[in-house]
């Protein structure tokens, strides 16, 4: 019998991707953006000094937000297009 797991897909960009050493990361048991930040800061302490926003399924969110199962969660450093 398989457990139903809460899986999310992390996508990282710009200097955040560089610090993570990857563009993509599959994680489970990350129910909220606060838990996500805590996990990332623990795994990649350098991130704590960096500014980045979070998008859930391509929408920027602010504050602590629930992360739906199977969500695509993006870590977005300050934009610098144009």
């Amino acid at each position: 019998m398989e457990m139903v797991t809460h899986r999310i897909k992390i996508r990282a960009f710009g200097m955040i991707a560089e610090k993570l050493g990857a563009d993509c990361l599959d994680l489970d048991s990350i129910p909220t953006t606060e838990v996500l930040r805590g996990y990332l800061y623990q795994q990649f302490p350098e991130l704590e000094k960096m500014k980045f926003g979070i998008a859930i399924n391509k929408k920027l969110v602010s504050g602590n937000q629930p992360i739906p199962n199977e969500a695509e969660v993006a870590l977005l450093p300050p934009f610098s297009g144009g």
Partner: protein
Amino acid sequence: MEKHRKPKNIFVEGPISPEKIAKSIANHSSKTDIGGHSIFLGQVRADEKEGGTVQAIVYTAYEDMALEKAFEIREAIFEKYPLTCMHIYHSLGEVKTGEICLFVFTSSKHRKAAIDACEELVERIKKELPIWGKELVDNEKEVWKENT
């Protein structure tokens, strides 16, 4: 007739050529209700950075989100100003100093709408599109840009 607009691709691999801009302008000569075009072009500067001069910027984007957001901005600007046409192009990959990385083009019956819409588009593109530029400095250092 399908009236619903779909997200258009805004991304161009490498620099945006003056010829592409000329072609885009020429394409509007059949739209004889247009009285004014406003164009903004972003060009890569050879800024001085710690240890050297910028040689190029390498652009990456969260493409799906950028296209959705660009679509949302397009719709809002079309809603706000009486425009005939609006075009947005942004480079991905390497753009050398002196080359064009952003091309924003608005057209309207009267100049004021075209000019105001173009300016607002440029501001929103820079602030809201998930695009990142990494400056390549001639000492082989790399510096991530940040829009203010």
